[in-house]
């Protein structure tokens, strides 16, 4: 038995040398490329860009592109042979379209194995790292935790008449997908879901164009409760925001990251993806931005969020989105 020990140690040393030299080689090449260009629709990720530069000496340039301009921009640049991005981050439905158009290249990061199996694309192209989780957020100066809803159905209580804010369900794709997610993953019967929609509409929620403007009216007390995102509790601190601890799961659109198939800085891009998916970067993301990430054991510093079940919603087709937008227009008006 003893004579196996030196051989085992030797093998391990060999392996770690190969791994080290692989990492080192990637870093050397990335340093030669000098920078990586990152397109994303995620908020305030500058701290990650800075930490990446400090760690590796490679500059990460970040362009934030809103969801409605994401595909037109990337596809136009790609079509003209001028895609500037090396790494693309977006909601998974967008990345899936880009994947079909050949904009993305396969890359399996060594760090990806730490994530749950369902987050990995079978083609090795898109890596899901988080969920844009949606919840019921309220102003705790106006509403006590006891009064706050315990189930989604509680939002239909007439006591919330004229007090709710939410993104416009007749035009905002993420909100439509979320409502369909409730039907498919939360409500036991479709009738129950319809009753929820009717009750919500009867409470005349204030519509804003997307999730971005939802915390504003909650903070000011104009509409003290809303369908919004728990991450605002972090980004809007010290505003008196809290999230309703629901018995049911929270839902959201999965977020992914992928390598560009025409990356001008492919090695820096791979180094960046590895870093982005690392525990260190994910901790920065949850601490600074309050995002919900899928790296095991990393949670945003929001009380109670560790115990919540957060599930991804599925990607709706364009036809489904249009169909449901029309249905919601009938229910909510406008």
């Amino acid at each position, binding site marked *: 038995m003893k004579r196996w020990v030196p051989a085992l140690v030797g093998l391990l040393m060999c392996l770690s040398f190969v791994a080290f030299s692989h990492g080192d080689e990637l870093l050397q090449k990335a340093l030669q490329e000098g920078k990586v260009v990152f397109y994303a629709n995620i908020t305030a990720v500058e701290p990650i860009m800075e930490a990446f530069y400090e760690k590796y000496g490679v500059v990460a340039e970040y362009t934030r592109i*809103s*969801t409605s301009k994401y595909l037109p921009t990337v596809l136009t640049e790609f079509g003209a042979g001028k895609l500037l991005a090396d790494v693309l981050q977006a909601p998974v439905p967008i990345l899936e379209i880009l994947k079909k158009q050949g904009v993305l290249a396969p890359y399996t990061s060594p760090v990806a194995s730490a994530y749950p199996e369902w987050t990995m694309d079978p083609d090795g192209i898109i890596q899901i790292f988080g969920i844009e989780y949606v919840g019921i957020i309220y102003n705790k100066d106006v509403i006590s935790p006891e009064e706050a809803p315990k189930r989604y159905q509680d939002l239909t209580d007439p006591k919330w008449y004229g007090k709710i804010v939410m993104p416009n369900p007749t035009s905002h794709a993420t909100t439509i997908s979320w409502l369909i997610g409730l039907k498919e993953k939360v409500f036991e019967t479709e009738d129950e879901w319809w009753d929820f929609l009717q009750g919500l509409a009867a409470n005349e929620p204030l519509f804003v*164009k997307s999730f971005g403007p939802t915390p504003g009216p909650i903070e*000011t007390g104009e509409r003290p409760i809303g369908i919004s995102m728990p991450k605002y509790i972090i980004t809007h601190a010290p505003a008196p925001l809290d999230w309703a601890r629901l018995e049911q799961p929270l839902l959201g659109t999965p977020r992914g990251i992928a390598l560009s198939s025409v990356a001008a800085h492919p090695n820096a891009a791979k180094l960046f993806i590895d870093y982005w998916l690392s525990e260190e970067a994910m901790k920065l993301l949850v601490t600074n931005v309050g995002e919900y990430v899928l790296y095991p054991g990393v949670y945003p510093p929001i009380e109670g969020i560790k115990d919540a079940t957060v599930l991804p919603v599925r990607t709706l087709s364009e036809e489904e989105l249009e169909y449901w*937008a029309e249905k919601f227009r009938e229910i909510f008006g406008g």
Partner: protein
Amino acid sequence: MRMSGLRPRISPLTFTFVLIVGCLTVGPVLMLILGSFSRGIGAFGVFTVEKYIRVYTDPSLPKILLNTAAFTVGSSLFATALALILAYLNVRTDIPLKGLFHLISITPMMIPHIVFATSWVLLLNPSNGILNLLLREVLGLKSSPFDIYSLGGMILVEGLLDLPIAYLIIAPAMASFDAALEEAAWVSGGSKFRALRRVTFPILRPAILASLALVIVRSLAAFAVPSVIGMPGRVYVLTTYIYRLISLGFMPDYGRAAAVGVSVLVTSTVLVYVYRRLTARSERYVTISARGYKPAIIGLGRWRYPLSFLTSLLFLVLIVIPVLVLLYVSLIPYVMPPSAKAFSMMTLKHWNYVLHDPLSLRALRNSVFLALVGATLGILLSTFVSYIIVRVKSAGSALLESLAFFSFSFPGLVIGIGFMWFFVRTPLYATIWALLIGYIATYLPYGIRPLTSTFIQISEDLEEASKVAGGGFLYTFRRIVVPLAIPGIVSGWILMASMFLRELSLSAVLSRPGTEVLAVQILRFADDSLWGQVSALGIVMIALSTTMVTLATLVGKHIGKSK
């Protein structure tokens, strides 16, 4: 020997400018029109009219069109009426505090529209709007007297936002007004009011029409007010309809949005044509001729102070308070109605953040560069173009006028994509020059409108005299035309520079690392509802604009005096 009168052919001068302006404005619009007839979501695809059929057979469209008509015409009438009163008081009367009123009339132009609209929501929302709460308290009302989320609210805020456009078109026309005409009316026994109605307003007709047309075109393309105030009130107009088309689904079809934009473009082109027809006999409006002129100051007598007080009050409510709200929001940690708690929590953290944020600082530098260089180049081009539009009444100059409005008439949500489709085929893509060219191309009417209204009032006899005395075209242009048009040039420069400083529609699509601009930076904060940062940067923007406007006005006055 007059240059006016219909000419059968396009002169080389007109042709050159048709070419320059055409190159600037047609490309992006053409791309969008191609996209509206193409299958798929790019500019080029298999021909189809399906997008037009879908958007124009939508059953919700008639109501949206009706709302749009009420919103644009309402805003236009409100802005123009307010501008007329203000310009008259400021330019033609001895009302005190003129400089202040002048500045206040153009302040809304310096504030990002989304910030101004949000400020009004904080003041007049029916749940806990600050002014509503105050009125409820004072008048003992049970419910809020005002609801900002209504068509009326939209018209109020859009009208105020467009007030500077109206003011900067009407004020120079007032300044170039020959008071001898009014004096003649008084001498003939008419009252001052009658003179105002029968002489002053008719002479100002081109400027009034220009203002009405320009505000309609601008509010047709506006998105901030319809989204921040209209959408919560379920009042949808064309731009929110376009937003629905592009935000519904992850594959936004800008071609379909462009199909809606085409009807906005057609409406605007018709408006420009109608305006041209209405001011065709421009000699009627000539007030500056070889006889010398002075815009005399009318004494308000005992009305001087009451009127001044009323105007101050109006502007305190309409403009000063919303700006103060901005200042307040920039100093509290999160947005809450004013209270002892709010004041005790006041902090400079948002200011510290934006003043130390390298991105915001770079955006500031880029925006100042674009405003100064862009407005100067833009006004140079506008001066020549306006001169041709007014003086050379040929088919070519009519074409030039329509072309100048091309990109401007397209809703902002869409035109940026048109520029992207256009620039990506050139080496300018992702550079600051793409922004510079795009800005000038899109906002050319801001330079052209005040200048054409001014040129219309300048008699051609002066130029003829110079030519008879041996002055060439450029000499006459430099020594006669430009000095007389200084009020218009200053107005145009101010409009362009302030617009470029807060430009968003194009920048949101074309800005990249290194070419960040202020408005995009503000949008990033606004998208996350970080109103403290938004307000702090908004105030920085107002301060910069105020400095530019003051300098431009002083330079204009200095040149005017030396003239």
